């Protein structure tokens, strides 16, 4: 440990201490501080710092991202931080001409945005990090351009991947894009064969999930299909191994709706909404997967209207209100249900009438690999 040695009054701080201070700063400050001196620039750009900063952000300041379904500013998202302050964030920084795009998912501060349109005049997918304003188009593949898309990170292979699935009763095609290699490749359909995907993707802990429906067909002696007994499943894609498996659903009561996957204490979890008979009130259940089975961990108090549970954030269940009618200007559109105290917090993000898709998000310095590739599309 160095002694305090200085001509001025300001003491000299060791590398370790500077590191420890800087890792607590928001991305915006760190980008600015790259201009302080070369030493700080090298430190802030170093992979070990980026990883440490991400780890610190994930635990100390996890955020929420709100994507309005229809709004006056279709290319903007709202970011809600731990102090409950909301601010706007661009979906595709640095690219103004794009009219819209939908966020597929978020991992470690990166967003995968679907910007496909009928004209197909540009790549269908973008990767970006809004906190450091970096954008990278994903090259188009020769395969089918529609289908279900998932995005996620695997620490095992230290790579971000995009999965594109196109399945129906007769045909299945799966492709995976690796950010590391910068290319697409085909992947075995495997257990996905014959399944129907019934939701958007959700990513956690190195896996990408979808809800699916499997049709178990009954055949008679000659092989004609005489009946079917379908049931819902959870499809899991292991990002590292690039393999699909099926997970069971919990034993949901028949009146459960709006199932959505999330995580709770680092485990896969599911949120569902239950209407209460003869009333407009609803309950939210949280199920958690331990091993191969599900346990119901929590049920909210009744809330006097329909709630659409979106995700778990900082010991709260985040729900949006699905009022089924035009909302007044001062009505809340977002509800937090505390998992310990069951306390309810109501607030509005954006305009009251905006319905949002809500994601867990963390600001990071993770690089996407640069804007210069976009020069030809300007």
């Amino acid at each position, binding site marked *: *440990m160095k002694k305090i040695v*200085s001509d001025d009054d300001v003491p000299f701080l060791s590398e370790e*201490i*500077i590191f420890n*201070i*800087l890792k*607590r700063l*928001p991305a915006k400050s760190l980008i600015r501080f790259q201009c*302080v001196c070369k030493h700080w620039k090298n430190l802030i750009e170093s992979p070990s710092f980026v990883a440490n900063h991400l780890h610190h952000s994930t635990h100390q300041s996890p955020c929420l991202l709100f994507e309005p379904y229809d709004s006056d500013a279709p290319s903007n998202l709202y970011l809600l931080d731990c102090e409950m302050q909301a601010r706007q964030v661009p979906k595709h920084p640095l690219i103004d001409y794009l009219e819209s795009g939908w966020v597929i998912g978020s991992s470690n501060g990166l967003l995968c945005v679907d910007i496909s349109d009928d004209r197909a005049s540009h790549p269908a997918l973008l990767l970006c990090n809004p906190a450091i*304003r970096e954008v990278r188009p994903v090259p188009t593949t020769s395969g089918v351009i529609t289908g279900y898309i998932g995005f996620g990170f695997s620490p095992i292979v230290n790579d971000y991947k995009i999965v594109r699935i196109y399945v129906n009763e007769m045909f299945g095609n799966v492709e995976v894009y690796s950010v590391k290699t910068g290319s697409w490749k085909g992947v075995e359909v495997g257990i996905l064969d014959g399944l129907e995907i019934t939701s958007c993707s959700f990513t956690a802990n190195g896996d990408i999930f979808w809800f699916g429906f499997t049709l178990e067909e009954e055949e008679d002696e000659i092989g004609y299909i005489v009946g079917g007994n379908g049931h819902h499943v959870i499809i899991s894609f292991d990002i590292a191994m690039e393999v699909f498996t099926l997970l069971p659903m919990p034993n949901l009561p028949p009146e459960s709706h709006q199932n959505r996957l999330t995580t709770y204490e680092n485990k896969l979890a599911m949120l569902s909404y239950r209407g209460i008979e003869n009333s407009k009130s609803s309950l939210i259940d949280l199920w958690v997967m331990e091993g191969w089975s599900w346990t119901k961990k929590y049920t909210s108090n009744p809330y006097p209207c329909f709630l659409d549970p979106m995700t778990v954030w900082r010991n709260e269940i985040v729900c949006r209100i699905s009022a089924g009618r035009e909302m007044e200007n001062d009505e809340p559109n977002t509800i937090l249900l505390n998992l310990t105290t069951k306390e309810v917090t109501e607030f509005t993000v954006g305009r009251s009438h905006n319905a949002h898709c809500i994601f867990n998000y963390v600001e990071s310095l993770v690089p996407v690999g640069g804007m210069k590739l976009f020069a030809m599309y300007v």
Partner: protein
Amino acid sequence: MSSPVEQITVVSSDGDEFKMTVAAAMQSEQLKQMLTDDSISIVKVPVENISTEILVKVIEYCQKHADHEAATKANGGGASDSEAEELNKWDAEFMKVDVEDKLFHILMAANYLEIKGLFDLACQTVADLIKGKTPKQIRKIFNLKNDFTPEEQERLSRQHNCSFD
């Protein structure tokens, strides 16, 4: 075999002596190691890098946190939410120093003596302080030189849309 120690004496770089209870001293990994090593019989521990002004603050932190730990144990386990919040409030008040310099000296003392809680607290306080500052202000605070060439500055400014001032 040395008899159980109730207190230790620490000596600041100015030569002033201060008594610390063992519980308070154990907040410092460095002092803890000395205390748990039977082969050392401690009389006085000189802390060369730490002035009287700073040492007084550090001892105050250690004593408060040692007392809090003892009270928690007496209540049979985890601190209640309100007790934890009260300690946080105390910590926040504690870190309100009149001169920025003092903050850095406390930080370095906590690092030297390996007092994790105080170190993290001081780092967070500095981070909150510098969050909104300009690069020029940062250089002044940390006594750093701008060693970019004019071309490098130009490129960085454009890339990050920020100024060097």
